[in-house]
């Protein structure tokens, strides 16, 4: 069965530090998708990225970058030069048609 593990329950850093959120997944599917979502205090889930299982290229979008390594079943998320507005709960999820979610990592960015 599919499973997503986000071992870091909470991370606290000072503004401008870089921070990496870990995500490890388990699946028997050969074709699947991986996602990251952000949930700010307002509660609405915000889509950040989708990767398919055949595309292991790392991706960078502004201060955000993602490292997908199929060999270790990991899909880690790095925020460079963190800002207070990055404070939120971040979820990693796996899907072939339904999303299976990790428990989330609460990220606190202190000014």
């Amino acid at each position: 069965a599919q499973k997503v593990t986000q071992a870091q329950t909470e991370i606290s850093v000072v503004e401008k530090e870089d921070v990496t959120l870990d995500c490890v997944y388990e699946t028997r599917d050969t074709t699947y998708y991986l996602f990251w979502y952000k949930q700010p205090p307002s509660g609405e889930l915000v889509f950040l990225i989708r990767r398919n299982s055949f595309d292991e290229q790392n991706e960078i979008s502004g201060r955000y970058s993602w490292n997908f390594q199929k060999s270790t079943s990991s899909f880690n998320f790095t925020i460079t030069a963190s800002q207070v507005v990055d404070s939120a709960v971040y979820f990693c999820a796996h899907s072939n048609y339904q999303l299976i979610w990790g428990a989330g990592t609460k990220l606190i960015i202190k000014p």
Partner: protein
Amino acid sequence: DAGVTQSPTHLIKTRGQHVTLRCSPISGHKSVSWYQQVLGQGPQFIFQYYEKEERGRGNFPDRFSARQFPNYSSELNVNALLLGDSALYLCASSLGGGDEQFFGPGTRLTVL
């Protein structure tokens, strides 16, 4: 363009009652999924509908049911409410079943 909308935003019910939650997807999206999020946890998949057909169902009791209408909007129904049903109920829409899902603001259900 309007995003995913859900109604109501908040709801208070008592044990044993029934509740209906509503969701309107982004225009052009044909798939709607429902999730339950208990405080401090990740969302749990309840249902997915695509083109008005149920495509998937999570590990929830038969008290939970849903449907999708010809305009692709959806309803989630929960019968015989229990205290443990108190949660944020999230609706997400996508173009197809495996595409990225865009979430509505959720309905906060409190069962007393």
